[in-house]
């Protein structure tokens, strides 16, 4: 039994009981068929919560990418670009409905393959996936109203590469606007989390999409490079690390190929003295521990005004002890498994370095399961600006804390980063909110809330957090070529 009065009785396990059918082997999804890789390669995908093998998926190589791109081009020329826009929209609506129908299976699969708590995959990821398709489905026959006084046409074949932190949600963010605008797609899910995208491929079959419109290639960096470098790919959309984003921008130099990049972040989460402190504590917890901190827009730098720093830290340190770390499929779980081994090692490396620097680390003290990859919710106190844990993206449940005296100092510190994806502000004073949210250089600002997403709300970064927006009217722009 815990000494923490908030936990006076341990929670009984509440495992999610929905069964999901998983095949032993998955092929690449090309022209509405699952086919093995040309060279027969496969890759294993594991459950990060117990290290067990879940399935094998085909590993795409250059030949497979070429095949998928040709097929996508053919589908673009022969069917998708010729189809009445309203009909394209109806396919997307159909897919949105199928996702809603299978949402529980998808949530379970997402949590099994990626380690995120079922509460999040069930209540956040999958509902947003369906909503995203539903939203962009409606745009398909209304695009003339989206770009006043301009002509527009689709690019052709869009090459899309997505990360492992929100596997199906990122697929939806990429696929829905691209398809609504009349492009066909070659999508590569991350190597650690291929399964929900492949389940989506089955739904694409079920929705009877014209073959070749959506092609899903599982694989690693070889496939990713081949997609970016393929001459017949007309547009690149990438979500992932800033490092890879830079490589992509460089490799596209001189090609004239349009690209959108949604990259890393190191968001400042600013708490003013006049904030509602208990709510702010919940906001901070949601900001950094949501999805194990594997969130590009995570509030990973806490900036607290000096006058409330002691009180807030006391409450926050108390709160992180109450978070339940464990089985992602348990409905009580707050923090699931770290998505993959390399990431787990990277987080540990950051923590080790912070300790070596002499920084004070506080964690929630939870018992961790023996199998799988785990990290306790951790706070790094009084972290100096020069520290790597303040400057670089950890992408884990690790919060670096700094203090400030006045709003100008908060803004200065918030903007002292090469990133600019998101930020948070907590205060009871409206005018202060507007001043600070205006001054923080980031693409998404949450005031007295954090980590909210919606298909109608544009999302994307300033500075080295990338370029282009996903979501809303603004999210259509990257998927059309505009003329005069």
């Amino acid at each position, binding site marked *: 039994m815990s000494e923490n009065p908030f936990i006076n009785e341990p929670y009984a396990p509440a495992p999610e009981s929905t069964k999901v059918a998983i095949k032993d082997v998955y092929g690449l999804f090309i022209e509405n068929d699952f086919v093995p890789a040309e060279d027969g390669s496969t890759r294993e995908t594991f459950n990060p919560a117990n290290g067990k093998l879940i399935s094998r998926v085909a590993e795409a190589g250059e030949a497979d990418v070429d095949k998928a791109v040709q097929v996508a081009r053919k589908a673009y020329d022969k069917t998708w670009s010729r189809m009445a826009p309203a009909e394209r929209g109806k396919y997307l609506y159909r897919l949105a409905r199928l996702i809603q129908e299978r949402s529980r299976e998808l949530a379970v699969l997402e949590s099994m393959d990626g380690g995120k708590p079922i509460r999040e995959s069930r209540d956040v990821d999958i509902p947003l996936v369906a909503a995203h398709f539903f939203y962009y489905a409606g745009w398909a026959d209304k695009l003339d109203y989206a770009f006043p006084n301009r002509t527009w046409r689709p690019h052709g074949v869009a090459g899309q590469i997505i990360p492992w932190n929100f596997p199906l949600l990122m697929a939806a963010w990429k696929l829905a606007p691209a398809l609504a605008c009349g492009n066909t797609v070659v999508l590569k899910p991350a190597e650690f989390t291929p399964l929900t995208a492949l389940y989506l491929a089955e739904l694409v079959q079920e929705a009877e999409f014209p073959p070749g419109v959506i092609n899903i290639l599982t694989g690693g960096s070889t496939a990713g490079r081949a997609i970016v470098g393929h001459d017949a790919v007309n547009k690149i959309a990438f979500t992932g690390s800033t490092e890879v984003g830079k490589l992509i921008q460089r490799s596209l130099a001189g090609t004239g190929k349009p690209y959108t990049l949604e990259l890393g972040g190191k968001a400042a989460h600013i708490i003013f003295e006049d904030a509602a402190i208990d709510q702010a504590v919940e906001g901070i917890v949601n900001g950094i521990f949501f999805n194990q901190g594997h969130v590009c827009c995570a509030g990973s730098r806490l900036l607290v005004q000096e006058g409330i720093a002691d009180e807030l830290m006391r409450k926050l340190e108390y709160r992180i002890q109450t978070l339940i770390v464990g089985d992602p499929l348990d409905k009580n779980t707050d923090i699931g498994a770290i998505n993959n081994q390399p990431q787990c090692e990277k987080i540990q490396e950051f923590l080790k370095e912070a300790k070596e620097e002499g920084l004070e680390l506080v964690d929630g003290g939870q018992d961790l399961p023996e199998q799988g990859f785990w990290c306790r919710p951790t706070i790094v106190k009084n972290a100096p600006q020069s520290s790597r844990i303040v400057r670089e993206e950890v992408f884990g449940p690790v919060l670096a804390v700094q203090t400030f005296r006045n709003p100008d100092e908060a803004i200065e510190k918030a903007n002292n980063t090469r990133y600019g994806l998101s930020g948070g502000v907590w205060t009871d004073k409206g005018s202060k909110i507007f001043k600070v949210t205006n001054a923080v250089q980031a693409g*998404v600002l949450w005031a007295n809330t954090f980590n909210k997403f919606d298909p109608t709300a*544009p999302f994307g970064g300033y500075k080295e957090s990338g370029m282009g927006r996903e979501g809303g009217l603004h999210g259509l722009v990257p998927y059309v070529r505009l003329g005069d």
Partner: protein
Amino acid sequence: MADRILVKKTYKLYVGGKFPRSESGQTLTFTDKKGKLVAAYCKSSRKDFRDAVLAASAGLKAWKAATPYLRGQILYRAAEMLEGRSAQFVEELQLQGMGKSAARKDVQQSIDRMVYYAGWTDKVGQLFSAVNPVASSHFCFTVPEPTGVVAALVGDAVGLSGAVEAACRLLAGGNAVILCGCAACPLSASSLGEVWHTSDLPGGALNILTGIPADLAETAGSHRAIDGVLGIGLDPAVEKSLQEAAADSLKRLSFVAEAPKSGSPYAIADFLEMKTTWHPVGV
């Protein structure tokens, strides 16, 4: 009686609201078709560019802080100033080898483009912003903000109105600008600084560096305090090397092959960042 000795103008740079020479001391000479010297002008160095970046960063603060209405007033004032000096600009363009009617047309187009963009400063905000109908209890909106400090590299075949287009589309969105190149009319580009200087434009919001764009392309691409690069009429090889260098800090890039025949708010949007803000709705 002997003819009066003409007082000839020294064509200088425009940086941070001042008119310095190139720190390198280097000049280029503009010669007419017969090879006769027309005038010398500054050949900007990489150090000049770096100085201009500092000036532009300071200018950005003031320009961003100005209300869109004031920015429009200042752009319109620049049009007034250029109109008043149009005879000088026509004459200067003729000195640089342009026919009189073409020169007049180029100046008129420059003035009209300034007026066009003056009118956009307080309209792009509404045109590109949105209140997002989110499916939760939040008030969520998206508004554009300037990208920051943007280098505008103007190729050798681009005339005065092309350079004005580059400067105005960037200024209209609230960006600070470093205008580089303008080899077709370097004297006019230099004189353009005087127009802006008498229009209450904050020092550093626009900086003009005459010279060879290819000399500055690498620095423009790799300088980490440059947030974006606009290229008009650049050599494709220069464009490519610029893009490669720019990937180091993920700059916003936009290239057009030649000066556009008309202005466009979408051209402003190339160097705007969209910011989405969420507020809970409740008591």
